[in-house]
């Protein structure tokens, strides 16, 4: 108890004696007595409390640094261990597996002398891998970028103080609450060349030229998938941007107006730069969704979407769970991990340098 109050006291150096009053009261005498003193004894109690605290600090000064560290352990150690074991431990273990030749249904021998990068070499020589890697990159970049753009536009529109703002916000966000299984099935119907909404609409408008076999034509397959994903997630980007926009004081808009900036210029020069943090967090989450596009592709095309829309995640699943090539699957997973890191890391680092993280 004493220790805890000590920590609390140090955490809040500016906190006044009255705040700590009840805690200090518990130190020496029973709390009831302290409160039973009544308001007339208030001044005296405050003075006494101050005295006790000073005495304590002199006693604990010797191990101040280490005790800070030690005493904060209960707060950060459990999540640290859980994350370390279940996330980073799993990634590390996966990396170890990718160094072995683990395939089939016999567990590998984890012999350090046999570890090699054969699986990565195999990946580099595998045309399927390159197609999948390319598709993954395209999906990651195009999806994230377009999602942010759409989200920002929607957010700016919704931020104009329109009527039924909440309704619109809900409508735009709703698709995100649907599972990939639902949206994949749903878009498979939308893209149906005979009865699907898209082709039917196009031919109603006399645009028969544009009616395509959206998800079976290899040229449009990936684009069709990306479009559907954007539909699902631009609402999320909108919500994040909307929060960012709301955080910008009205003065900034007014100041820009007074300085004679056009609307476009105002957003470009004044508002957008202030949305950096929103962009950052939305982009990271969207990229994670792009990697999770596995579910979407799996529901739409089965475990092999074909070269036009194959991504590393589906390939990894096939290699590991279809062909029992566990080590190869792990190697692909590590490449996927490195790709995600490569996209996120520079941005994170830039933010860190800027002091915004």
């Amino acid at each position, binding site marked *: 108890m004493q220790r805890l109050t000590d920590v609390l006291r140090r955490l809040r150096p500016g906190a006044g004696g009255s705040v700590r009053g009840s805690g200090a009261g518990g130190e020496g005498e029973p709390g009831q007595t302290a409160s039973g003193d009544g308001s007339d004894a208030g001044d005296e109690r405050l003075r006494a409390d101050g005295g006790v605290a000073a005495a304590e600090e002199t006693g604990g000064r010797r191990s101040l640094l280490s005790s800070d560290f030690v005493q904060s352990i209960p707060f950060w150690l459990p999540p640290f261990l859980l994350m370390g074991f279940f996330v980073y431990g799993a990634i590390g273990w996966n990396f170890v597996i990718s160094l072995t030749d683990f395939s*089939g*249904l*016999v*567990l590998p021998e984890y012999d350090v002398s046999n570890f090699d990068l054969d699986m990565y070499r195999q990946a580099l020589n595998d045309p*399927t891998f390159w197609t999948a890697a390319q598709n993954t990159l395209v999906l990651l970049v195009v999806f994230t970028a377009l999602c942010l753009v759409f989200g920002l536009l929607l957010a700016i529109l919704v931020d104009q103080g329109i009527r039924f703002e909440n309704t619109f916000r809900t409508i735009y966000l709703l698709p995100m609450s649907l599972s990939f299984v639902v949206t994949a099935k749903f878009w*498979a*119907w939308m*893209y*149906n*060349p*005979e*009865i*699907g909404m898209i082709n039917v609409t196009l031919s109603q408008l006399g645009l028969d030229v544009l009616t395509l*076999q*959206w*998800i*079976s*034509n*290899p040229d449009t*397959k990936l684009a069709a998938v990306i479009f559907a994903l954007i539909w699902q997630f631009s609402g999320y980007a909108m919500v994040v941007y909307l929060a960012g926009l709301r955080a910008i004081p009205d003065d900034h808009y007014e100041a820009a107006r007074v300085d004679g900036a056009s609307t476009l210029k105002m957003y470009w020069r004044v508002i957008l730069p202030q949305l950096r943090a929103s962009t950052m967090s939305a982009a990271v989450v969207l990229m994670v969704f792009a990697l999770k596009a596995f579910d979407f592709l799996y529901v*739409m*095309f*089965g*475990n*092999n*979407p*074909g*070269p*036009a829309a*194959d991504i590393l995640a589906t390939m990894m699943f*096939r*290699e590991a*769970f*279809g*062909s*029992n*090539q566990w080590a190869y699957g792990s190697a692909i997973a590590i490449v996927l991990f490195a790709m995600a890191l490569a996209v996120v890391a520079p941005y994170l680092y830039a933010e860190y340098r800027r002091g915004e993280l």
Partner: protein
Amino acid sequence: MTGTNDDTDVSRRHYLKAAGAGTLGVTGLAGCMGGDSGQDETTTAGEETTESDATEETTTGGDSSTDYNTLEVQHWWTGGDGEPAIKALFEGFAEAYPDIEVKQNPVSGGAGQNLETVIKKRVLNDNPPSSWQAWPGANLQPYIEADKLEDIGESVWGQNGMKENYLEGPKEAARPDGTFVTVPLNIHRINNLFYNVSVVEEAGVDPASIETPGDLVDAMETVESETDAVGMAHQTSSAWSTTQLWATVLLGETDVETYNAFAEGEVAANEEAVTSSLQTVVDYTDYLNEDAGSVSWTEANQKILNDEAAFFHQGDWAAGMYRNQDGFEFEDDWDHVPFPGTEGVYALNMDSFPFPTNNPSPEATAKFLQYVGSVDAQERFNPLKGSIPPRTDVPSDEFGPFLTRQMDDFQNSDSQVQSIEHGLAVPPNPKSNISDAMAGFISNWNVDKTYGQLEQAFN
């Protein structure tokens, strides 16, 4: 029993006990828990009740004079035709072996992809279930190579006249490496050509007279010029249906030897046969429903039901949809011929139950597999599943006209080949490569490129 307040408490306990007895189907509760002899009777009954209430799948046998461990069976029949079928099977098993406790542990997901993942993990950790639903044949090769399956040539296949009553094809699939490791339960045929009677009659096409897969192109052309229907309903949103179709065309254009040679990896030696069959499939694509690329096989089959397509190639599980459609009758509205050029051949897709090593319940598993291989089990399971029994001595009374015809075809077939798509003929690794090739094929329809990939599939 508590002696104090007999009126209230005891009546509740009586009720519990009665419920327990009812659920368990036992007369005496003593010895219910096997080894735990020291336990109080009433408590035992209460516990048992809660347990069987909580896990619905559990069916418990009574007096366990022979100590069987709980039989854990995993399968993917959680819906469609499979669910009632496996239920009927386990009911029969409970009647035959009331003292074996069965724990079903189904993992849903069509074609068993999810189950397969679970099983692989458990087998890798040497913690397999007692048995599980698995495609037999080459699909089990990795398990055999890892020495994870046991020889049941005597303990199971030696019983019930199984060896005498299974035909060579299914037996072949049950011993991928020469020793019996699994027991096939049902057969779905792959080399089917379903057709809508009214559409082909309107077009003036006689499906029975189509001799070769190539002739089917002409028949479909006639259909499209004479009627509003498309020639063939098909799905190309995922590759498996087209792999099946192509393998069947290969079988129809050549013979069983060539088909088996391909499955054994002799692709280059059969280049002409392979490219020609791929080309035939490409020719078919002119007559497919326009939305083939975005529908599932059930949606494609719906076009047969709606008189919108003439022909349909699929495993005979497709007939389940016709059976469930009121007013769509066999022979009057839909009919079936073996795929052109494959008469006398029965292309097998089977489900089976293997016997893993390190079995948690060896005796119970042996009894279960014996039961799976029995006439009783196959007669219960197959009519509901819409498949035919691999045993030839199962009476056909329960099976309905279509399946009876399939059974006749099967029993009189000259040979039975194993499905490539369903992993019976090809081990998982090349099978996955073949699927890769076909996944490209269904979007680019490029014969040469696909042939190149197929040739590499076995390396």
